[in-house]
């Protein structure tokens, strides 16, 4: 009798076209040219796009922007920086931004004159009013969060305006695209290897830090970012799979054990970064203090637009790659049924390698995006991990469109939820949403029900 692997025909319904190649060996010659090509396009796009003049200047400075809980700039707030033999007081400008040039790197005491804050605005964290700041080189960005009213930020009703809603929608869209970058990689790795990767957040962080290193070595971010993506894809993606996951698959380590391993890896990576780079947030030297462009009621920084557009292109390229390219089709075949894919001549290990490269590259992109619009910190990826999981769970574990849809929904939800709940709780909202979806539709919005037996 013929020894064909036992399969259910329906498993192939959506992908019937690749079965035509059965019998022939599907050649899985990886075409790195495709990915490199996409990256080169990215670089070119970066160079072509005109950035708004950046506030970044030579020298060392403490910079920041004060914004109220409703996103409105806080103007004319007085800040004082003190160090040995150095004192300077400045006021925030019309956009709420401030910049205090300091003579050299070192420890500075930054205090805000609470009396100059608009009435009704208070610090979310009381310790923000006076803090000591370690400045190394370049711009040191300082973050402040404010609350309104005496009950500390829980009153948000007053800010239920169309201007605010449209700002949040745009922010949500951008945040959704950022999450999608991470979630697509997370889902590809899950789809092909079954591994729920709790160290995916660290791929973002590693990408952001790779770019920081290149940036601090003197490369402009426009060069450093694509270079960091390539390095991350190879080093943290391909390398990680090669050194850790491939041997574990060969040992037949179970998926549950592997999940615990991803946790151990995440902890290790995070604290290695903390050890070598320290705990204070860093910023890229270019485009740090950009002020927003006004589109009607919505204010967006040029860098956000550039990053979001490039990210959307990268995601679209990934989807097209999965649909059109030979290795992309092989990837979907492996996600569908690794045993059968292997039996039809697909080199499963090779597909997994490619998926790690792609996943790490996209994650690095997300990390640089996040690091450029916010800060680069040793635990930045960890903070985004659960939001990525929410996106993936929402869309359906293992489905690529699900990850994208889920990411956009979560991004919007997180931002819009601040209309009702305090900003500090916005992640909580997304995680609640995920749990509720699991109750109602465990396979996610676009996922399909699993076969049993």
């Amino acid at each position, binding site marked *: *009798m*013929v020894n*064909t692997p*036992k*399969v*259910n*025909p*329906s*498993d*192939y*319904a*959506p992908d019937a076209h690749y*079965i035509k190649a*059965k019998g022939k060996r599907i050649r899985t010659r990886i075409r790195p040219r495709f990915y490199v090509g996409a990256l080169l396009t990215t670089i070119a796009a970066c160079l072509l796009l005109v950035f708004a003049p950046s506030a970044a200047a030579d020298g060392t400075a403490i910079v920041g922007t004060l914004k109220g809980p409703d996103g409105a700039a806080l103007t004319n707030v007085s800040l004082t920086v003190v160090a040995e033999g150095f004192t300077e007081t400045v006021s925030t400008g019309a956009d709420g931004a401030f910049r205090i040039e300091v003579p050299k790197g070192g420890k500075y005491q930054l205090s805000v004159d609470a009396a100059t804050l608009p009435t009704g605005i208070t610090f979310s964290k009381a310790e923000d009013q006076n803090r000591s700041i370690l400045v190394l080189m370049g711009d040191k960005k300082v973050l402040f969060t404010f609350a309104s009213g005496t009950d500390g930020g829980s009153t948000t009703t007053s800010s239920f305006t169309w201007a605010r809603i449209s700002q949040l929608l745009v922010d949500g869209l951008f945040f959704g695209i950022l999450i999608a970058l991470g979630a697509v990689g997370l889902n590809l790795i899950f789809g092909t290897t079954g591994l729920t990767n709790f160290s995916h957040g660290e791929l973002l962080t590693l990408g952001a830090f790779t770019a920081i290193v290149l940036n601090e070595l003197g490369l402009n971010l426009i060069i450093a970012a694509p270079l960091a993506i390539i390095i991350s894809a190879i080093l943290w993606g391909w390398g990680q799979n090669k050194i850790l996951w491939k041997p574990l698959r060969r040992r037949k380590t179970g998926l549950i054990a592997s999940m615990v391993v991803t946790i151990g890896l995440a902890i290790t990576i995070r604290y290695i970064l903390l050890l070598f780079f320290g705990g204070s947030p860093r910023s890229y030297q270019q485009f740090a203090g950009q002020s927003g462009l006004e589109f009607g009621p919505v204010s967006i920084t040029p860098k956000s637009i550039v990053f979001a557009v490039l990210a959307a292109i990268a995601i679209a390229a990934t989807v097209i790659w999965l649909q059109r390219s030979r290795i992309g089709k092989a990837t979907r075949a492996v996600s569908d049924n690794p045993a059968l894919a292997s039996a039809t001549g697909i080199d499963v290990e090779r597909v997994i390698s490619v998926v790690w490269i792609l996943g790490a590259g996209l994650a690095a992109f997300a990390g640089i995006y996040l690091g450029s619009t916010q800060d680069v910190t040793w635990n930045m990826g960890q903070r985004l991990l659960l939001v990525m999981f929410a996106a993936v769970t929402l869309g359906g574990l293992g489905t690529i469109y699900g990850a994208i849809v889920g990411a956009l929904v979560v991004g919007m939800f997180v931002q819009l939820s601040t209309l009702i709940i305090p900003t500090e709780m916005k992640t909580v909202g997304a995680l609640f949403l995920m749990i509720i979806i699991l109750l109602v539709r465990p396979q996610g919005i676009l996922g*399909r029900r699993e*076969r*049993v*037996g």
Partner: protein
Amino acid sequence: MPANGQRALEAQSALATVPRVPGASKPDPILVASSIVRRFGGLSAVDVDHVEVQRGSITALIGPNGAGKTTFFNLLTGFDAPDEGAWSFNGRSMGRLSPYRVARLGMVRTFQLTKALNRLRVIDNMLLGAKGQRGERLWASLFPFLWRGQEVKNTERADVLLKRFSLDAKRGDFAGSLSGGQRKLLEMARALMSEPELIMLDEPMAGVNPALTQSLLQHIKMIREEGSTVLFVEHDMDMVHDISDWVIVMAQGKIIAEGPPGDVMKNSEVIDAYLGSRHEKALTESGESLTTGEIK
């Protein structure tokens, strides 16, 4: 020859007058299923109009790879939910019952990919099969005197079964250290611990070496002699000839033939289904390949 035991003769004579057509009704059915449909995407993996299983018989469910046999098993045992259909066991309606309830009612299954519980000892695998254990309740488990007596009795019964299945020497070993064939035996013995009325074996002979196959067949006959009904899935036609009283043939989700093994083997539709499947590897979903003459 156990095949000619009392129960075998009874089953075969009861089935003698049953018409050899798909969906034929049996004199004393233990399991009756009607209009069972399970779709995956746009395809019907299972689409069974009517089927009955005679009590006390060994019934084989055969068909080429991908015919929907395992899916049908999953549906009947509650491990998967059909899109349509109803079925009853011992006259009791079984639709939408959780799989553990199905098992408690006396309809116990095994799996195609053997599910020996690797890091449990062989004897513990066996004891897990026993029904109605007081010590399985959380509070009672803390007070051994409540369940010790029952445990001793279950252990005695398990030892008898292990001896019968020649696993007594492996009693204290981890189940994970057994060979593939021994795991099949263990899984069958474990199912018998629950004293099922209907035992459903999913490819009991798959991956078992020929020497052990004979002994497996003897065990299956023995189960019938003890009064249980056996329904088993197999894709190799020759395997079922020796032991089954009745054969049901599935292809592409439907039941295409029924009858005693000798009759079914001669059925041209069955032969076509098998040959067709060899040529097309059961991956096509069209029903045309069933008609004679189209096979190349």
